[in-house]
């Protein structure tokens, strides 16, 4: 895989776990980028070259829902697929997000296999 992925989560532990899993899936670690909030993610996205965003929902400063809405409102970012990685399982909230550029949802805690599966599916179809 040569996709460039942005991992957005306020937990450094989770970002490292996701990066490690992506590396084990064959993704070049140099192609995985990190942001600790929605605000940081928008800054990184403004530089271009990101193919997919993996984002948490519950974050301080700017949460994942706000990030998704900002991306959807931006002509430069609205085409980038987003996968939500969150502890939250509230269907009303997720259904709202799935109307935008969100293409998948993975619930924490997740196994490396579950992350690999959803990435393979979404990267092939996106």
């Amino acid at each position, binding site marked *: 895989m040569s996709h460039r992925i942005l991992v957005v989560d*306020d*937990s450094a532990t989770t970002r490292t776990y996701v990066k*490690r899993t992506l590396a084990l899936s064959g993704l070049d670690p140099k192609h995985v980028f990190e942001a600790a909030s929605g605000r940081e993610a928008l800054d990184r996205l403004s530089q271009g070259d990101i193919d997919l965003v993996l984002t948490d929902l519950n974050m301080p400063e700017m949460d994942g829902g706000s990030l998704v809405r900002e991306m959807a409102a931006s002509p430069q970012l609205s085409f980038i697929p987003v996968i939500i990685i969150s502890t*939250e399982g*509230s*269907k009303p909230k997720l259904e709202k997000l799935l109307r935008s550029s969100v293409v998948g949802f993975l619930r924490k*805690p*997740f196994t490396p296999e579950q992350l690999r599966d959803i990435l393979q599916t979404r990267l092939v179809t996106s």
Partner: protein
Amino acid sequence: MNSSQAQAELSTFAATVLHVMETAVFALADEAEDPTEAQLLDAIAVGIDLGKDMQSRIEIAGPLELFAELAADMMGADVEEISPEQAADFLSELANMIAGRWATDALGDQAEVALGIPEPIAMNDDVWEARLGIPGCFVFTVNDHYLIVDLAPRLA
């Protein structure tokens, strides 16, 4: 809520904690046979609020060493490489995962729950020791350490 419903919800909560521990860090946790024996040496603690349809709060405490070990497992690192800040970060994420899972397990996926941001709590041994053995305050053993998970307000 009657006492049998409360007991059922408490059982669900304990199961949620065990599921998160096993899935997130492949750690096998067991409920302590005697919760009042839990030791709180060099412990840290965190709390997280659950709002909207669920007015509740979860607080978790345990030794820094335990969270360093679990963070190392999750990150694929040696425990010596884990800083106290990383161990505390892991504890916050653990609280986040337990709270999110519990909210859906207890209320179903149609409920709207607003998770707070996990916040560190100043450790007060007397306060935690007073909770041990009270329904809603669970003590687990993980990697030969005690992990205390308190669901409040208590349901029973």
